[in-house]
């Protein structure tokens, strides 16, 4: 399998997804050594361009690059020329002139990584989250967390029922996970109020073959193997998608008690950062069923696998960036 860019999960083949996941599993060990560094990407340059707030994704891309011995630099909107009004493509062209091997980008606009892949073809682009479109490494680390907890290989990670709860409408994490679970052969339920889980998501372009939509939490998570709780995007609260956070929490907030009652065997994922007491109760966040800490640990391994895969194998064929179907801000 050869990858030129990692722009989304949607355009991966099943083989590419399995290969990335199985490689990621091998990289977990490197972070558990006393000397957490291998020389694999010596002399390669990785630029992390984060034009939207991020703690874990940015830190873990940086750590992943460093543990592979790549030279990594981090740029954020504040303190860069972006603040002076430089546009995305001009910034990228400037960075390209410094010959990085990989450019990791987080951007508030859906499709930004795809545009860069077209405009700066010599550099491999990694999407670290673009608008409401995709967050491919998040889906990979969610899958790796499941592989490790359920003690399965990527090939065996099928036949599961995955309930995704919360603000599906705005969630790139949900979209990437939907594509990943489709490739793996798992069934997906989308759970939340109708304002945040539009009915047209069922059987839509997003997920041929269909997902099921549930506006009732109990019904949505009942008997699920995996419950993925999404962050309530507080920055969108002025748009009145829910009457009040209190009410949202009462109907859709996940707690130990609700989990025990409706999905006692389920494991819980949360992409972070969590709003304690809103979409997830604080006790559940670090409960034995929660994989939150593992998600962060495996995030580093997954990003190491992605960077390694893009930086090696010169036979990598350029792939045509696919057009983005989804919302553009």
């Amino acid at each position, binding site marked *: 399998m*050869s990858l030129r860019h990692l722009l989304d999960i949607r355009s991966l083949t099943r083989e590419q997804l399995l290969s990335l996941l199985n490689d990621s599993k*091998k990289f977990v*060990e490197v972070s558990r050594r*006393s000397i957490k560094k*291998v020389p694999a990407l010596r002399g390669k340059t990785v630029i992390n361009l984060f034009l939207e707030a991020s703690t874990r994704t940015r830190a873990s891309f940086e750590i992943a690059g460093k543990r592979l011995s790549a030279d990594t630099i981090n740029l954020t909107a504040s303190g860069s020329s972006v603040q002076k009004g430089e546009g995305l493509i001009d910034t990228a062209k400037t960075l390209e002139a410094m010959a990085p091997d990989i450019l990791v980008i987080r951007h508030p606009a859906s499709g930004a990584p795809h545009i860069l892949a077209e405009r700066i073809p010599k550099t491999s682009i990694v999407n670290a989250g673009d608008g409401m479109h995709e967050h491919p490494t998040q889906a990979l680390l969610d899958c790796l967390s499941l592989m490790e907890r359920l003690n399965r290989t990527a090939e065996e990670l099928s036949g599961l029922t995955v309930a995704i709860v919360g603000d599906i409408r705005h969630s790139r994490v949900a979209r990437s996970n939907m594509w990943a679970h489709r490739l793996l052969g798992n069934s997906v339920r989308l759970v939340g109020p109708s304002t945040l889980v539009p009915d047209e998501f069922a059987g839509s372009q997003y997920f041929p073959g269909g997902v099921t939509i549930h506006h009732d939490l109990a019904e949505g998570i009942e008997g699920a193997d995996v419950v993925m709780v999404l962050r309530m995007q507080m920055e969108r609260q002025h748009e009145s998608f829910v009457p009040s956070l209190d009410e949202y929490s009462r109907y859709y907030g996940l707690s130990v008690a609700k989990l025990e009652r409706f999905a006692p065997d389920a494991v819980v994922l949360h992409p972070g950062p969590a709003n304690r007491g809103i979409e997830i109760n604080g006790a559940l966040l670090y409960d034995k069923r929660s994989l939150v800490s593992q998600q962060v640990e495996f995030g580093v391994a997954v990003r190491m*696998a992605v960077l390694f895969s893009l930086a*090696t*194998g010169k036979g990598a064929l350029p792939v045509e960036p696919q057009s983005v179907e989804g919302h553009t801000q």
Partner: protein
Amino acid sequence: MGTGETVIPDDWKVVIDGETIQRSLSRIAYEILERDDSSVPIAIVGIRTAGEFLAQRLLKKLQEIDPSKNYAYGVIDITLYRDDLSHSAEQPTIKGTELDFSISGQRIILVDDVLFTGRTVRAALDAIIDFGRPDCVELAVLADRGHRELPIRPDYVGKNLPTKKSEFVRVHLTEMGGPDGVYLLPSPSSKGER
């Protein structure tokens, strides 16, 4: 690789047969124990893929010879330490390293199938050092075919194989879909292949 029976082509020449492989491993096991200093623990570490299986067999021989001794065992994958990662056209496959013991103060016996340029061993040494400071590292190989490109020499050799640099040597083991044997492949240049 590793699945199903491997059919050995007619023009492959057997240079070490299955019986000789087993006898060589027994001899190497005795040689390792001759140098044994009971105060230094021994660890057998195979280099993936064939070296892993040879290391397992060597470990078994050692345990048969002296069942009272404990040996640590591990495998290393040198993929992340290769010196040709930027040049390789193929996507390298990561097979994983498993050293679940502290290597500090251990006498490490590094095991591989064929010693050729020495580049794999160089990578393996770098990988080992990343895990700690062993007492010493020794190298055991099934076959030494010469043509070293680095100053590396084996401590234990199953058989010295004089070869041309252009020739190919293949090792088959039952663990990989055998049968056991080391083969010399016809030189591709003489057949006009590649």
